[in-house]
């Protein structure tokens, strides 16, 4: 459970940092608002959707970290763990996912300066490389099967299929949002709205990339 404890410690530090700025030491029963003065408020400058996404990323991160925790614990719990031959496809897939992350980064840059064509190119590049990544993951599965590792052959292969599937499903969910953003860009939505959608996609894809790098490292380690 070390991995998840470290993860929660990180999340906990963010929460503690945030709470420390919320005036938890104030004495609300002594506060008075002078007439004519405005009551204290601190509206967050961040858009609501962005905060929602970050909360979701924290939850999805916890989920993936728990899989990692289970992986590491199961590895050492009984002596039956056999190292999985890492399918070479995974290296190529990592590159594809990095490309899609890069594509969205470019789209985000384009959205900032209001260059609609750039947004379109970035989104399409990200979508295509993401689809290629998913197809590549499927091919990697085929490679592992060909090596003689089925789902139930060894915990190492069980975890391999499970973790890649969970990560892939998160990417597939992101594809829905990406598709909607693409549709929005296609229809020529207002720039501020488009900019937000693109930024949200980019943030989520960066998260998926980081998550994949960690999970891939885990698979290499196993």
């Amino acid at each position, binding site marked *: 459970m070390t991995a998840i404890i470290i993860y929660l410690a990180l999340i906990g530090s963010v929460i503690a940092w945030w709470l420390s700025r919320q005036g938890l030491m104030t004495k609300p029963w002594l506060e008075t608002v002078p007439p004519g003065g405005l009551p204290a408020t601190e509206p967050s400058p961040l858009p609501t959707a962005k905060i929602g996404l970050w909360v979701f990323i924290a*939850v999805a991160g916890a989920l993936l970290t728990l899989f990692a925790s289970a992986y590491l614990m199961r590895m050492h719990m009984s002596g039956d763990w056999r190292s999985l031959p890492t399918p070479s496809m995974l290296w190529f897939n990592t590159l594809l996912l990095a490309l899609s992350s890069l594509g969205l980064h470019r789209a985000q840059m384009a959205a900032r300066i209001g260059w609609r064509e750039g947004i379109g190119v970035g989104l399409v590049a990200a979508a295509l490389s993401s689809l290629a990544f998913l197809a590549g993951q499927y091919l990697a599965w085929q490679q592992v099967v060909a090596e003689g590792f089925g789902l139930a052959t060894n915990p190492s292969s069980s975890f391999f299929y499970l973790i890649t599937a969970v990560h892939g499903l998160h990417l597939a969910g992101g594809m829905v949002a990406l598709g909607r953003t693409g549709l929005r860009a296609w229809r020529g939505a207002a720039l501020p709205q488009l900019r937000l959608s693109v930024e949200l996609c980019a943030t989520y894809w960066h998260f998926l990339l980081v998550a994949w790098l960690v999970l891939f490292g885990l698979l290499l380690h196993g």
Partner: protein
Amino acid sequence: MSIATGPANGIPAAEVEDVELYHPKSWITKYVFAQDAKVIGIQYALTATAIGLVALVLSWLMRLQLGFPGTFDFITPAEYYQFITMHGMIMVVYLLTALFLGGFGNYLIPLMIGARDMVFPYVNMLSYWIYLLAVLVLVASFFTPGGPTGAGWTLYPPQAILSGTPGGQDWGIILMLVSLMLFIIGFTMGGLNYVVTVLQARARGMTLMRMPLTIWGIFTATVMALLAFPALFVSALMMLLDRMLGTSFFMPALVEMGQRLQHEGGSPLLFQHLFWFFGHPEVYIVALPAFGIVSDLISVHARRNIFGYRMMVWAIVIIGALSFVVWAHHMYVSGMNPYFGFFFATTTLIIAVPTAIKVYNWLLTLWRGDIHLTVPMLFALAFIVTFVNGGLTGLFLGNVVVDVPLSDTMFVVAHFHMVMGVAPIFVIFGAIYHWYPKVTGRMLNEAMGRLHFWVSFLGAYLIFFPMHYLGLIGVPRRYHEIGETAFVPASAATLNAFISVTALIVGAAQIVFLFNLAWSLRRGRPAGDNPWNATTLEWQTPQTPPAHGNWGKELPVVYRWAYDYSVPGAPRDFIPQTEPHAGPAAGEPAR
């Protein structure tokens, strides 16, 4: 921020936020596929109550068997296990969690922080429908061949998916796991809403330290649930793979009926770690909203500001954080390095400190208060007593050496029913009596309420106090029938029969409550906007019940904390949060 000319005292009017609310066009979108958090809250509450009644009936059946063994032939050992399992799982997850967070969270968060609605109404609606689907999948397991799972609510492998356990090799366990996963997906959608709404949609002036403790409790519990439920998701998914596709995450090599199973090398302990990593925070996911709500009930009905508000907030946050590092105290008897046991016993006992602070603060709030013994107040007081009782036995069980002999006896059953069953349910009842006037515009009937309270309160004690004793003399839990043993005297059977009769009576008293809910909907005394003279925002809405969008044209502005009761020199014994301070001269009355 622009300063507009405003009403009294030159304080600017609340800027009217130009929110895009989805306005329902038909009956279906208003009451069925609703996006209004208040309707969703009621939907959650009704669904949770309905499935909770199923669990109540299951507990009756269990008590019939325990009280009068051999009399009811239709309750076989397998069915007894199924009743235990479904009773526990429904009560903990589908009733308590759903009702506190989905029910009260949805109804109260936007109202109490001065928002128009949740920030993602569509996702909120999906959350309820996925929850309903989870409940339906759960109910479906009653009707499948082999019936629901009988693995105990902790679903420990390997027994949970072996043929010896009811539902283990049938549909029972599969539907259970699928239902849990659906519940978690649905909850995550709702939870995102609750957290982000509190972060982003608070009315002007509603600083975190002016929020009512109800919101603090629900908010913290939601954050915890968002981080803890994934552990249940992971364990459910991995067990599903073990059961359906023959993997060996949790399943060791086993011989069953002379047949060697294909599993090998899996670790049941791994499951226990993951399960309790969810399971212990779950206790506080239920308790923290209860703590928050009870603080507000006590403050309102004792007409006193909550004692030590800051301390209460810190205690909620500290309990939330600590509850993530105590999970292994559920595993003392599973085999553990003694140093780990020592660590987890220590963290467990440390949690008692912030919890005790909360209890002291409740008592000090009551001290010299103008206590109105209304039905909500009665339930709040009953909660404090019950929670302290349950907490004290928790100190017994938190110690490794005391836990080992008491583990798997009725003492544990009595402990967690007191602290996690009866106590939060009392808060739920109190909260319903308290907020029903806001939800419906009518008061619940007082006489029926008092009858309901006294039967439930006294009855709960008559049920669970003797159960501690049964546990101490060694009556094991989870036994269909203990038969003749050397150490359990025959009088234990008499006590069991007494407990069972009381349980039936207390269960029947809940019918009075349900009748009251239905009867008062039409016949109850009209409540007006603020029947309890409370300060918090939900009582200051322009309409009762509040309309879609909650606040009419102008959002409320918050000038003070939530607990200005019996302020010396004030014309009334409460000052709503929306009321500005009079002027610099009368600025701060000595308190």
